[in-house]
């Protein structure tokens, strides 16, 4: 049913339709509304789950790890410092092959303290073994939660999934979303039947000490599963399309790329603003397109290559940094073309929207303008030079 909902409430509804048995989280802006609403649902009896109050994100992640190991479908969400505080446990969850689903309401990382949106938090844990989806709008945010559970819990996968949505812009943005019915979700997402679980009647050990004889193989296995996911995700997303009527690719989305001479690559809500600018510029005859990366882990390198191999100029938009090196998305896009016969003449990199700096249509037009014959790495858009003057006073 179509409703006008705040993003966070829409996510809470979507999660509750997936019927998790254990929910645990620690409040942090801008994620808080999601778990507040879930807690209310539990209290009101609309969601039959155990909501575990904890004293930190490290504990929240540990609780859902434990719940999942016990054979129960679990949910948590966080942002920013909260996600960093979870990091140790995030690696454990993936390493133990537990199908946890987590929503990351993307927010900048301290210091300086900043509660606003960029994508540094989830990018910083990209290597933990989790699948990562980045959504453009609240409808995608809703839809990718049942998709996340379905992928995570498949016996051929058994890996956690993180749904990343831009904090405030989406979490606090009210827009029209079609919330799936319980029947639709039940048809798409069967109840969770774990392969193994912690059971006092049949004791097993999970996540034990593994010596050099077998550690490599445990890591190799996760890597292999991640690669297989590049085939499996489109399949699951296709099945979701049959049930919901909303069709996604699941890995990438191409917007007006077919004849494009310039293509912008981006992830998350900024893709909406980019599409608006593309439509404006195309009316003036400029052949521009967007390649939206939906699935960042596993990284759909082959799909991106096929989409971009004949495009002369590429702009990679990063909303996070790898301080002291190339930006994360840029580095990966750049490297997938290495040694290939066909490749763009120019692949430039632009940094936008850090710590909530507003990304306007003009910001995107500046990216298009600077995507010229000169290749750029880490070109900061909307930088304020007047704030960069250094003034020291010797005491």
């Amino acid at each position, binding site marked *: 049913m179509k409703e006008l909902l*705040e993003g966070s409430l829409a996510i809470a509804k979507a999660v509750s339709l997936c019927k998790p048995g254990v929910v645990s989280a620690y409040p942090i802006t801008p994620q808080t509304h999601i778990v507040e609403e879930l807690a209310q649902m539990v209290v009101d009896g609309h969601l039959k789950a155990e909501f575990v109050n904890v004293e930190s994100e490290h504990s929240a992640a540990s609780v859902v790890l434990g719940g999942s190991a016990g054979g129960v479908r679990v949910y948590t969400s966080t942002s920013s410092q909260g996600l960093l505080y979870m990091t140790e446990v995030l690696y454990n969850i993936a390493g133990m092959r537990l199908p946890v689903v987590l929503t990351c309401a993307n927010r900048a990382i301290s210091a300086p303290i900043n*509660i606003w949106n960029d994508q540094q938090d989830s990018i910083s844990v990209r290597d933990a073994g989790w699948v990562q989806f980045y959504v453009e*709008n609240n409808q995608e945010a809703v839809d990718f939660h049942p998709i996340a559970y379905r992928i995570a819990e498949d016996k051929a996968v058994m890996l956690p999934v993180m749904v990343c949505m831009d904090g*405030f812009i989406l979490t606090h943005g009210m827009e*029209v979303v079609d919330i799936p019915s319980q029947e639709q979700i039940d048809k798409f997402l069967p109840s969770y039947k774990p392969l193994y679980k912690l059971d006092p009647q049949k004791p097993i050990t999970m996540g034990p000490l593994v010596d050099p004889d077998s550690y490599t193989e445990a890591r190799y296995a996760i890597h292999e599963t991640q690669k297989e996911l590049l085939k499996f995700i489109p399949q699951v997303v296709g099945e979701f399309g049959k049930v919901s009527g909303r069709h996604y690719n699941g890995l990438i989305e191409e917007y007006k790329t077919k004849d494009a001479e310039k293509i912008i690559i981006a992830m998350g809500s900024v893709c909406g*603003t980019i599409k608006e600018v593309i439509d404006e510029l195309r009316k003036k005859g400029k052949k521009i397109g967007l390649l939206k990366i939906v699935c960042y882990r596993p990284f759909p390198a082959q799909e991106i290559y096929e989409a971009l191999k004949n495009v002369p100029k590429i702009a990679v938009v990063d909303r996070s940094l790898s301080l002291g090196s190339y930006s994360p998305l840029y580095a990966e896009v750049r490297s997938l073309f290495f040694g290939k016969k066909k490749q763009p003449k120019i692949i430039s990199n632009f940094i936008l929207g850090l710590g909530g700096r507003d*990304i306007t249509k003009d910001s995107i037009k500046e990216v298009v303008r600077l995507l010229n014959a000169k290749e750029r790495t880490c070109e900061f858009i909307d930088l304020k030079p007047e704030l960069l003057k250094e003034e020291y006073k010797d005491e």
Partner: protein
Amino acid sequence: MKEIRIHARAGQGAITTAALLGLAYFEKGMYPYAFPNFGAARMGAPMNAFVRVDVQPVRLRSQIYEPDYLIIVDPTLMRGFNCFSGLKDNGIAIINAKEDFELPKIKAKQKIFVVPANDIAMKTIGRPLGNTAMLGAYAAATGELEVSTLIEAIKKRFSGKAQEGNIEAIKQGYAFIQGKNLS
């Protein structure tokens, strides 16, 4: 596409105002995107809420710099800051203030409507939260929404006494501007 910018202080209900506007436009079958921007994220700090509305889903995610309509919930914000920045040449502003409020200079086709929304709110709700009276004034000043549509939105958000009071506030805010137009 229409763009509305609300100026308020954190805690004055601007997000609820944006949400109610969104709900009213949604009742009309349109696609709103209502969102806040917090400044210092502290009670009393200046903040904005925005509504962008179109006949199809809104994709543009930036803040609103060239609004069609302005809703100024707290006129003290105008002392040190140009709330009118970027208002379209034919834009309309609704200001919550007493009638003797000194109006800023505006362009020929721009319009300002002043409504004593806090006074209306004291009478109807019992608290100086003029948001819903402002929405009634917005409907009358812009012709964008019917009072009945706003009341439907109120019913989705409030119940009991709060619902009654806010519906009355909308009606009085609307009537105040209507009366102005007639005189």
